[in-house]
């Protein structure tokens, strides 16, 4: 079985400040890890993913996440947030063997304060 824990349900941060959204996972096998973003009344958009190789992965809009196998973590960071980053962020995990179900965390609401 696999599980995901997002330690913070809400994270308020001032505009242009850095942010870290924490994610820890549990799995007995190799995993793929994802961060999805959900804007109000919309579906989920893939922000970035770790499949293999470099443990640091980056998105096109300045977010990055680092896979840490020893700490079973995949924290999401951005050095300077914008108002438009206000959304809910979901960390997710799936087994790396074939098409497996994706298990999501409970989400972290990022609120960027002007």
């Amino acid at each position: 079985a696999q599980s995901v824990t997002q330690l913070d349900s809400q994270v308020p941060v001032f505009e242009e400040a850095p942010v870290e959204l924490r994610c820890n996972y549990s799995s007995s096998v190799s995993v793929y890890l994802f961060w999805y973003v959900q804007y109000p009344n919309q579906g989920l958009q893939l922000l970035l993913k770790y499949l293999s190789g470099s443990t640091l992965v980056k998105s096109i809009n300045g977010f990055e996440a680092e896979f840490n196998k020893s700490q079973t973590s995949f924290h999401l960071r951005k050095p300077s947030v914008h108002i438009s980053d206000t959304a809910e962020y979901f960390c997710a995990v799936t087994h790396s063997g074939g098409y497996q179900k994706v298990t999501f965390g409970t989400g972290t609401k990022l609120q960027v304060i002007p």
Partner: protein
Amino acid sequence: DAGVTQSPTHLIKTRGQQVTLRCSPKSGHDTVSWYQQALGQGPQFIFQYYEEEERQRGNFPDRFSGHQFPNYSSELNVNALLLGDSALYLCASSGGQKGGYTFGSGTRLTVV
């Protein structure tokens, strides 16, 4: 290139009724998964369809059933609706490249 399309966008049903939600996957994708997202929660896996067969299933009762058609589109059926079935139902498609699913905008189901 169209992404994942879900219909309808919103739906209101009465307790005890049946509902059918529809999903067209992204072009080139052959696998469809359905998720239920209750208010304030993360999405919960319902089931996954591949080659018109249910390949995996989450912890949902038999009232939840599905179907995949030869063109890879899919339906989610829920019978004997309960108030607790009120949620956003998300369809996700994948295919070829491993990892990462493309999600639709969802169907908001309200059971009254």
